[in-house]
């Protein structure tokens, strides 16, 4: 999400409206932590920003291996920033593998900061270098700062008596210190954070603090190559108020708590560990003061079933996973559809099929969400567009689930889950509560009594006198709720279930336009985490005078009531997706429009340039 209101043009030397920095090293080098610290300092500085943590599936790949490189990219600037940036301006490479795997993203003339001590014969060979690139002139197209970081760090932290292994680990903080200097960021938050994190190990805390300060001092005092000096990236003009950084995992967790409060029901969050979804389980497990209970089940099926059991008993069951785990839950989700119980299913999508690319992002589970059930079963699907949006989307999903007594699938993805963004901190009092009413009146009670408007089935929880009833997966009589194999009744019940879900379209906002006008040459329709890239791509095209609009769908099923009509107002509809074309086929099927897909499934988010080029290519066709 961008929080920028107005754009500040820098007018000083070595300044830009935005910079992309990528920290890259071994998965054990602490690059994610470094990136997060830098992000925090940058947010405090007042830049708008977006990040992209990109790490391997292996927890600790062999040192120096290219497949073990862990990277953290941040794009920050004085303009609105909605993606982590197309190209890298500054690359921090902690070893040869990090350099070789990331160099192709670096702009010509970009800055490389490399730990020369890690460019050993062994590491060079492992990365596939014949000669040392720091010395053979092959990096002449870039600006290079080659420093023996490891040795400097070991010297710096000597007074703290750490073992060599722990001393070397401080090199990420040394690098952070140098980067802080390079961009004129304050070290205070990082230093406070280290002292809190290692409160019980003051030696480690102080060694790391010393490393940060030493890295910073190096920048101030060393004679760096010409052209390397402090970058000026002026603060962005953002809406006044209180901010924090958030990942999608955090804001989704908080949104689940908020949704439970607004619905006035306790939450049972039942889950099973899976990358990249486990963070929700971790975050919520630490919130026992709220009415959220977590349960780490023995498998995905048990997790969703426990959530369903909790919903039956009067809590809101929530379960979460990623694609493969959602497949395992599928049978139970249909049980929740059949028994018409509220349930929230969060899918943090990753590259598939099967184990696929567990740590890489993709949005390839839309079909699974909308269609992936046996029988004629439909349920609402809602998608978050960025880390901040997860909060509101979770609340909206819980509103629909509790109001309509239906499972709801919430789609996030690996990118949203891990990427950090500044968040204008919401006030829960600004949200309208939607308290659940449990049935308690025995007179005329039947478990299939419905709200005439929403068609929601009554929710009568065990423990309420006179409400004893049975539910289950077998088809039920539409009037009595008793099991029924009657053919006409099945037609009727199928129709009711469908009408209930279809009717939700009347209770969700009409589709708005994220940028542009209601008619025109091209509409770019997106969903989920492609928001940032599409937004910037459309913006660039519009700056070039093109008639392009950006429409971003949150309610994936049922689709907003006006969407078909809205899309018919454009000559061309382009649907970029990180899959081989799922939303585009749904739109074509629903509205009989000639929408064109644009697919990317390489585990990386769209680049702005890619969207821009695709729009321009399509506009050529229009001409």
């Amino acid at each position, binding site marked *: 999400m961008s929080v920028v209101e107005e754009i500040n043009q820098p007018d000083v030397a070595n300044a830009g409206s935005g910079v992309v920095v990528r920290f890259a090293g071994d998965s054990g080098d602490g690059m994610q932590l470094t990136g997060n610290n830098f992000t925090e300092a940058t947010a405090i500085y007042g830049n708008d920003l977006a990040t992209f943590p990109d790490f391997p599936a292996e927890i600790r790949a062999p040192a120096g291996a290219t497949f073990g490189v862990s990277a953290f990219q941040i794009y920050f600037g004085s303009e609105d920033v909605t993606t982590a940036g197309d190209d890298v301006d500054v690359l921090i490479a902690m070893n040869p593998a990090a350099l070789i795997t990331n160099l192709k993203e670096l702009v010509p003339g970009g800055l490389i900061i490399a730990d020369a001590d890690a460019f050993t014969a062994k590491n060079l060979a492992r990365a596939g270098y014949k000669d040392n690139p720091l010395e053979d002139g092959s990096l002449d197209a870039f600006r290079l700062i080659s420093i023996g970081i490891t040795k400097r760090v070991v010297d710096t932290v000597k007074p703290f008596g750490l073992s060599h292994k722990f001393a070397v680990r401080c090199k990420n903080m040394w690098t952070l210190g140098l980067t802080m200097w390079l961009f004129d960021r304050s070290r205070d938050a990082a230093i406070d954070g280290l002292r809190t994190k290692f409160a019980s190990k003051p030696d480690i805390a102080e060694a790391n603090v010393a490393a940060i300060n030493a890295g910073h001092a190096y920048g101030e005092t060393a004679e760096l190559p010409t052209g390397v000096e402090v970058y000026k990236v002026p603060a962005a003009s953002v809406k006044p108020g209180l901010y924090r950084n958030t990942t999608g995992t955090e804001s989704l967790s908080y949104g689940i708590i908020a949704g439970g409060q607004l619905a006035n029901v306790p939450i049972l969050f039942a889950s099973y560990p899976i990358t990249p979804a486990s963070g929700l389980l971790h975050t919520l497990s630490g919130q*026992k003061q709220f009415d959220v209970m977590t349960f780490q089940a023995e498998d995905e099926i048990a997790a969703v079933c426990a959530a369903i059991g909790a919903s039956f*008993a009067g809590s809101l069951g929530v379960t979460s996973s990623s694609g493969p785990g959602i497949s395992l839950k599928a049978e139970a989700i249909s049980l929740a559809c059949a028994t018409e119980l509220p349930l929230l299913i969060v899918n943090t999508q990753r590259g598939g099929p099967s184990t696929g690319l567990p740590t890489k992002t993709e949005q390839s589970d839309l079909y699974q969400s909308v269609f992936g059930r046996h029988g004629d079963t439909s349920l609402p699907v809602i998608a978050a567009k960025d880390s901040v949006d997860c909060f509101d989307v979770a609340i909206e999903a819980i509103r629909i689930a509790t109001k309509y007594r239906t499972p709801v699938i919430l789609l996030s993805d690996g990118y949203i889950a891990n990427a950090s963004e500044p968040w204008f*901190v919401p006030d*829960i009092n600004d949200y309208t509560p939607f308290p659940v009413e449990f049935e308690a009146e025995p007179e005329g009670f039947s478990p299939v009594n419905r709200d005439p408007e929403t068609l929601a089935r009554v929710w009568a929880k065990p423990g309420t*006198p006179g409400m004893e009833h049975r539910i289950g997966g077998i088809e039920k009589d539409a009037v009595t709720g*008793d099991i029924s194999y009657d053919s006409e009744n099945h037609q009727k019940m199928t129709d009711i279930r469908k009408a209930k879900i279809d009717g939700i379209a009347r209770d969700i906002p009409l589709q708005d336009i994220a940028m542009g006008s209601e008619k025109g040459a091209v509409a770019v329709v997106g969903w989920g985490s492609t928001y940032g890239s599409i937004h910037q791509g459309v913006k660039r095209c519009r700056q070039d005078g093109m008639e392009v609009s950006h429409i971003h769908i949150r309610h994936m099923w049922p689709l907003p009531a006006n969407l078909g009509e809205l899309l018919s107002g454009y000559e061309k509809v382009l649907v970029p997706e990180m899959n081989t074309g799922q939303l585009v086929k749904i739109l074509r099927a629903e509205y009989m429009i000639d929408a064109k897909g644009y697919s990317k499934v390489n585990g990386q988010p769209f680049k702005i340039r890619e969207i821009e080029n695709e729009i321009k290519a399509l506009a050529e066709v229009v001409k």
Partner: protein
Amino acid sequence: MNAPVKLTLKDYATDQEVRWCPGCGDYAILKTIQKLMPELGVAKENSVFVSGIGCSSRFPYYMNTFGFHTIHGRAPSVATGVKLANPELDVWMITGDGDGLSIGGNHMLHVLRRNIDLNILLFNNEIYGLTKGQYSPTSKVGTKSPSTPDGSVDSPLNPCTFALGAGAKFVARSIDTDMKHLTAVLTEGHQHRGASFVEIYQNCPVYNDEIFEHLKNKKTAPDTRLVLENGAPMIFGKEKNKGITLNVQRLALEVVTIGEAGITEADILVHDETNKVMAQMLVELQAPDFPTAIGVIYNAPAVAYVADVYSQRIEVREKQAPADLNALLRSGHTWTVE
């Protein structure tokens, strides 16, 4: 809902037509439980029956309590969720040998390991009834069925052995038509805090008739049943002269006859339901060389999972500031833009 009215069996019956085959052992179990419920001192609205899929899992439809007929094998997980959401509820879980030990074996393992406070009733008829007679994980080797026309070749699982292995703290065995014995076992299981696992031998007259007949027939039962009572010697037989002893050299149980080879009643093992090693030996006793142990085989209460979850939560709440979502949202590093 004023003065507590004493409920009867009828209050626990539903108006639904019971759809088991004529002569099915499930009828007897249903009657026993409907009769037992008013005696347990639990408000009707607090009783919940959760089942999976199979003949036995139709059970909740016939109990006028809260009921949830779920999906195949998953009753333990749904019941766990019910109990976590509301620990006040008295939750019964009805399953069978296929539901609970085949498709749902993993969940059964974990519900027992976690010691969720449930009354778990596994109706064991050693066959798949509802899907028309295929052999099950408890079928004896050689069972002929539509899927094993030449006899099954894989080894069966002993449900009570499984339960003990999974860490169950209460393991018992009873027989569908023995109302008195079943009532006693279920009553004890109900008093147990934590998962109580009761295997009920249930006759399926359609697909696996009379497999437990030797235990039911009045003539053979005395010699084939070892009825366990805590603190009582393990004596059985028509003449009440047979007993179980431990052969220490072989570390194995033996059947002996009192009055023969100098054996007296004092030599017979006394049942101690808290002895797990003994329990593991007792559940394995099999015909024809041994009688089958029925009754409460193992009963060693321990703290149940749900209770621990709640006490941990209380502990945290006592230490931490009260729940305040706005404060949570503002926790960590924040900054103000003027």
